């Protein structure tokens, strides 16, 4: 446990340091310096932080509550779409068609007025609220229906996959009013500042990093709380917890909604950094990739999910750049190897090594045990 605490602090420190130093290097250092990070790398790391936040949110439901959600990226994408709507409204009359109110794709579809569900998104505050409420509400509705009727295990996994698949099909439709196939893109401003500027990119990186740290600390506190213990107990012995008089479905619902909101937040931060959101974010394979990030890092540890997300995505960036063909082979191999040989992920592996190493040291130095006590 002490190891875990140490690693936890280490991860937080690294995130904080990177989130602070990269923007500083980018903004303050002169051109040509080795630590003058490019705008591309700033956005790339910002993207990793968002993925890490998404992985962390999945770890809360999968690692702690034992609910394998195969559609968690749906909440991520929904948050992203909400942010995308805000950014679209900020374009104003600078679009290709120059319509002051309607986004380009609506003009293209010959729509005459803004649909009701696009109202209010020109306000950042409202959009920010919706980033949490939209995924949260979907999770509440879906979770309430699912947990109340005690849908568990693979059944739950499969219908969450169906959920994200259905959403993907829906968002592909032009009639939905979310840009169809192309999604939302060509953003210009966020809060009045150009989204392309280095300062905004740096600030977005810093915000993502800080939110990731806050989420880590919050998650840690939650896991240690009485409620977290009940949730872990549900994962291990659901019927027994129910017999003890706990309303299992409420606990599950709570953690599910909380996690969906975190995922939505991650999506909302992701969209301004990559500059586009489209329906492929809903695709079931994306959701499965999130699961593998958590599995690689080690589930049920929160910071493991963060490490997993960053490592797998870094590998993806490298491999898709060098040899695109290799990437799917490697991803497939990761799935198989991690599930078969690393049930506790990389974190579990390191923990195991550290334990063995300290045990050996204790054996080698006589009297160490007494000293240790």
């Amino acid at each position: 446990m002490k190891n875990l605490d140490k690693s936890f602090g280490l991860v937080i420190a690294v995130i904080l340091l990177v989130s602070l130093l990269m923007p500083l290097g980018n903004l303050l250092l002169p051109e040509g310096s080795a630590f003058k990070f490019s705008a591309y790398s700033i956005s790339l790391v910002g993207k990793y932080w968002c993925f890490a936040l998404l992985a962390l949110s999945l770890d809360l439901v999968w690692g702690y509550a034992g609910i394998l959600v195969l559609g968690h990226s749906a909440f991520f994408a929904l948050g992203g779409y909400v942010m995308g709507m805000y950014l679209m409204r900020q374009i104003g009359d600078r679009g290709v068609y120059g319509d002051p109110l309607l986004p380009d794709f609506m003009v293209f579809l010959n729509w005459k007025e803004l649909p009701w569900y696009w109202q209010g998104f020109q306000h950042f505050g409202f959009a920010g609220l919706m980033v949490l409420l939209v995924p949260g509400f979907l999770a509440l509705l879906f979770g309430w229906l699912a947990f109340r009727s005690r849908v568990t295990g693979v059944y739950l996994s499969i219908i969450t996959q169906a959920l994200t698949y259905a959403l993907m099909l829906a968002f592909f439709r032009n009639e939905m009013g979310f840009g169809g196939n192309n999604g939302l893109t060509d953003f210009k401003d966020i809060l009045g500042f150009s989204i392309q500027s280095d300062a905004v990119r740096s600030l977005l990186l810093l915000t993502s990093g800080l939110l990731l740290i806050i989420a880590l600390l919050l998650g840690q506190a939650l896991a240690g709380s009485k409620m977290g213990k009940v949730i872990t107990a549900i994962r291990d012995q659901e019927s027994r917890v129910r017999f003890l008089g706990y309303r299992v479905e409420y606990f599950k619902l709570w953690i599910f909604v909380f996690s969906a909101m975190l995922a939505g937040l991650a999506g909302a931060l992701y969209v301004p950094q990559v500059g586009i959101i489209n329906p492929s974010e809903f695709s079931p394979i994306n959701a499965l990739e999130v699961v593998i990030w958590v599995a690689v890092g080690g589930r049920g540890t929160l910071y493991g999910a963060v490490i997993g997300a960053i490592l797998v995505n870094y590998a993806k960036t490298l491999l898709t750049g060098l040899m695109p063909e290799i990437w799917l082979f490697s991803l497939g191999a990761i799935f198989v190897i991690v599930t078969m040989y690393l049930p506790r992920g990389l974190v579990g592996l390191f923990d195991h090594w550290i334990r063995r190493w300290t045990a050996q040291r204790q054996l080698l130095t006589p009297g160490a045990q007494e000293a240790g006590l």
Partner: protein
Amino acid sequence: MNCSSHIKFFCCGLWLCLSLGFSPLLRAEATRPELLELLRSGTMPDKEAAIEQLANLPDSLELLQALQEGRLMELKADGKLVIVNRPGEPALFSDALSKTVLDNLDKSQLSKINVNNRIRTLLKKAIALQQLNDADAGSRLLAVEALGKLMDQSSAARLAERLQTESDDAVAAAIRRLVLLDQMQNGNKEQRIQAIASLKTVNSQELVNQLQAMTETDGEHFKEADSDIRNLAAAALIEIKGRIQAYAAMETLFFGLSLGAVLVLSAIGLAITFGVMGVINMAHGELMMLGAYTVYVLQQWLPDYLGLATMLSIPVAFIVAGLAGIAIERGIIRHLYGRPLETLLATFGVSLFLQQTVRSIFSPLNRSVSSPDWMSGSWQINDFLSLTWNRFYILIFSLLVFGLLVQILKRTRLGLEVRAVSQNRAMARAMGIPSGQVDALTFGLGSGIAGIAGVALSQITNVGPNLGQSYIVDSFMVVVFGGVGNLYGTLLAGFSLGIANKFLEPYAGAVLAKILVLVFIILFIQKRPRGLFPQKGRAVEN
């Protein structure tokens, strides 16, 4: 006898006629050489008249077809008409009049007889009229159908004449229908009333168009002046439209059943492995993909025997996918026993692996797989209902596979063991059933059926690396909806989802229909978390 001197003689005669202001059109009963000469040198109206007459002369089919297909030529030297035979016939050229084979001719010596669009239409009719006397009932029927589109006074008379001697029932019925249609338009009032009454039961688009026209107004007046006839026509139209709707519903039902058949095929393999081992095989879609590619490979090896290759690929795909399945079970799933969620992830990894393998070997593009002749085209039942053969065969095929699978599970030793293990693994082991071996064989069986499903899919959809992915969510839905451990649940679920999809489509569009079905299943699972036919007893709690 000297042909060319004859023709020269006629040429002179014609030249005389024309110069004296007598059009040869006036002659009611021209002889064949005269008509041919008109075709060669006459004006377009002359040619029309000649074709009208040739249509009534026996034995001019070959000539008319040649003219229509641009194979009727004129010998530049002496103006003799020559037919260029179709490729594959023994002689290349023959004389249009005497039909004797002509040798020592060259294409450069010939010039084509020109026709225009009006003449082409006339030719179509004339050819159909000629074919009305064909010995083969099938070509007679085609001729009647062609005439139906080009009806006029003279062809109606010819049809009525032919009806007296027609021996084939189907042809006679088709002719009678055309004669009635003609009477409906042009007969006296009594004939028209009778024609409408007897045509009411006929399914023909042409009839609908004509009746529709009879009930419409032409600005202020009705196109049909007689109000009695008009009312009868309107009543008949309503009756026929009711039938059209019924046929449309039947067609939708058929589409639904065929979609259901595909779903059942792709889901039963999944249902077996899920039911027996509690394992979700995410690579199931990719095993189907392997089956589809097996068809492609076999067709590449046997390019001259596409039908044989397709039939052969059924067992081959079963073996290929089955072996791949056994390998997955032995290599991975066996080690993850009792951890269904991990199995799900590991098999997903396998699916990515297989996808990329296929992409690397066969390229990411879709590969074209041909259908055997007997599977292409459609079964035209009447003007309003036609069923495509490939979907029809897939429906039959999926029922066969299903039946076979039920028999295997019911009657064979393996089936008995599979059922025992799925009901109570520990007890089955205690009774001496080698559960590991049963697992491997079950997984092989389920995977093999996925391969067979892939063969079926290759006939109706694109064969590409993403083939599996596009069906996997649907097949999961079928299994979840039908419930585990009961193959009839899968059958019922597959067909009802297929039919529901196709009936929703006209109202909601294809994508929204699919979304609605998915939402329905998500809601349905809340009510019955274990599907339509849940497993009962102790097995449930595992």
